[in-house]
């Protein structure tokens, strides 16, 4: 019995040492420094089938929740483009870390779907997109490209348009106003307050915040206080500079104070008031659909949370966030909008053939009828492509679309994608959460954000 044990063991030892030997040979077999990235990429390509037309590309998506949709689009793309195979790589919540590790292993994705700030920070790796290379650029709405043009060079193509504000449940608001609620009737903070009061009279909570850093830090504080309502790019940059040097403080800023008054108003009628930082999007979606809360500070992307819960006949829309009590302030009646993720093509670890195939893939996603249809059905958001005729089924996406077509939507980046550092939402989002929880007052919030800026200056 014992003998048998030992012989089995010895066999395992031998296999194991062979395995280890394998690894070691590999290890010592490649001496010297890291090879030039481009050369390495070319080498891998050559080792692929000899047929020159065969191209393997990869597509890295950071848009979670729609893997199946992309796989479906890829299947169709591959069928229409024999010779090109697309490997799909999906990110989770660790999008930057995974991107880094892909690049570290020399497998930088041919096409990546990233936030504009990430593309901006890594533009030295990206391929510039020109009209000569990509005649299909004409199909993309010009205004949607602004976030992806750096130094007059285009590096990305937006995936969708995302509008946000106060989502509302039509049924609840109809009951509150005693008729059909029209979001255009809310022109000032006072209008909003009156609405909240009416909603509360029906027994539902007037509004709702999801107490998470990305919503409060990025969408509220970041995009609104540092957004286009302040002025053009130069004005906004000057304001940031003044904060870095300590000359300007938020607490003295009228835009900030106006927005925080609205913030306080929402917080006062907050469905989650008792425990504001629980921050569960699913539970909040459920509260909106079931009418426990009348409105919700969120965006049209929330449709993926709502869709499973809504019943026949339910309807939803978006109310803009009022900055002030001035009914003529155009920002009070427009919704903030962004083109939050864009497709970019890597030029640092992919061959020319791969890059071209990557561009072809982007062309397909942005202009193919089938690709547009499935994207719109699943994401529920408007697509910034001119030839798109697919109908948006999500009432929230429809609302965004309507605001855009009426000229009542403003791009929160609007040419200044690098206005806020990539950790702003995390750091300052924490301060905003603290404020919502009542753990600091407005002055302290202003000081905390101020010290965030000052620390960057050092």
């Amino acid at each position, binding site marked *: 019995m014992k003998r048998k044990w030992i012989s089995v063991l010895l066999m395992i030892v031998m296999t194991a040492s062979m395995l280890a030997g394998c690894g070691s040979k590999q290890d010592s077999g490649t001496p010297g420094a890291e090879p030039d990235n481009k050369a390495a990429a070319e080498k891998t390509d050559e080792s692929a089938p000899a047929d020159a037309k065969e191209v393997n590309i990869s597509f890295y998506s950071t848009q979670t929740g729609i893997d199946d949709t992309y796989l479906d689009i890829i299947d169709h793309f591959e069928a229409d483009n024999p010779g090109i195979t697309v490997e799909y790589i999906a990110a989770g919540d660790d999008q930057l*870390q995974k991107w880094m590790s892909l690049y570290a292993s020399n497998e930088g994705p041919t096409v990546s779907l990233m936030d504009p700030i990430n593309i901006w*920070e890594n533009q030295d*790796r990206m391929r510039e997109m020109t009209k000569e290379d990509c005649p299909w650029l004409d199909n993309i709405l010009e205004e949607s490209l602004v976030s992806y043009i750096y130094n007059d060079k285009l590096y990305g193509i937006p995936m969708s348009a995302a509008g946000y504000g106060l989502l509302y449940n039509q049924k609840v608001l109809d009951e509150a106003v005693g008729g059909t609620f029209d979001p255009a009737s809310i022109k000032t903070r006072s209008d909003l307050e009156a609405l909240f009061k009416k909603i509360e009279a029906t027994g539902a909570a007037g509004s709702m915040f999801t*107490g998470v*850093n990305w919503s409060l830090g990025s969408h509220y504080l970041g995009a609104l206080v540092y957004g286009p309502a302040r002025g053009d790019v130069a004005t906004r940059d000057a304001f940031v500079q003044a904060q870095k040097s300590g000359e300007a403080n938020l607490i003295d800023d009228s835009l900030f104070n106006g927005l925080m008054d609205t913030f306080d108003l929402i917080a006062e009628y907050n469905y989650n008031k008792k*425990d504001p*930082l629980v921050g569960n999007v699913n539970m909040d979606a459920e509260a909106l659909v079931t009418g426990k809360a009348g409105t919700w500070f969120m965006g049209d992307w929330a449709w993926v949370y709502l869709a499973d819960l809504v019943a026949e006949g339910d309807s939803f829309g978006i109310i803009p966030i009022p900055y002030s009590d001035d009914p003529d302030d155009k920002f009070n009646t427009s919704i903030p909008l962004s083109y939050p993720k864009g497709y970019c093509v890597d030029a*640092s670890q992919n061959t020319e053939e791969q890059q071209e195939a990557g561009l072809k893939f982007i062309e397909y996603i942005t202009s193919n009828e089938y690709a547009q249809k499935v994207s719109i059905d699943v994401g529920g958001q408007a697509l910034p492509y001119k030839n798109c005729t697919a109908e948006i089924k999500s009432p929230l996406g429809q609302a965004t679309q309507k605001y855009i077509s009426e000229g009542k939507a403003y791009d929160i980046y609007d040419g200044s994608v690098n206005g806020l550092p990539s950790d702003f939402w995390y750091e300052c989002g*924490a301060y905003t959460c603290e404020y919502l929880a009542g753990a600091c007052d407005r002055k302290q919030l202003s000081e905390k954000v101020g010290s965030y800026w000052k620390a960057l200056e050092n």
Partner: protein
Amino acid sequence: MNATKKIKNLRLFALFVVPSVFIWMTVVIIPLLYGVAITFTDWNGLSMDIHFIGIKNYIAVFRDTAFLTSMLKTVLYVFLSVLGSNLIAFLLALAVTSGMKGQSLFRTGFFTPNIIGGIILGYIWNFIFSYAITGIGERMGIEGLSTSMLTHPTKALTALIIVTIWQMSGYLMVIYIAGLTNVSQELIEAARIDGASPWQIVRNVKFPLIRNSVTICIFLSITRTFMSFDLNLSLTSGGPYKSTELIAYKIYQTAFSSMEFGKGQAQALVLFVIVVTVSLLQVYFTRRGAVEE
């Protein structure tokens, strides 16, 4: 020592030590040194241009008050978690090995939290803290329980410690059990016949004989809690408002969210030095204690 003996020893060394040390060197040490080199650069983790910036990253680490606050919080967390989990693990191991019914059920049961990875556990506990406990609190009208523990800074840290103890004590228990089963039954019987009380048996017979297990368990729990990342991420994500950012989580944020990879690496190295010092001192002292026995 003669030459043949030397060669024989060398051959034994090559057979018993070299394979494992080789694999460890190639997987841990070489990348680690590479990582140290990065701390002297301004690399963002992705960019193609890297500049040598000397010890600037280290200066930034020591100047960063948030880093120091996070370190202090981590020390508190480590201390309470290590104490709690070792105490519970030891008591559980004693109880389970005392010859009671259903031993294997208990052994398996208490270990189960380790079968699932930290990230997933964190999500499950998140639900419990945010909805189960608050639900109970509301129904029973207990004000203190009706809001989530995770939305209050000190309570959230407590929640982290509770879950850590919950998970780790089953793990340590297994090691304590392995140690306790080495204590011969005859010795215990003999002590019992001599009139020793159960407590005296534990203190004077069992405890000294499992000194090795104690060293191992304390070492493992210290290192594991200092490195605690998964649970921190999925249970509190550093919140509410960054109040539960333990050090490993903070490092991750710096390196991968703020894209200050060099600085994150430098922070990690500082942590490394601290934990090495603490844990080697601990091993040294518990070992010395064992010799003195």
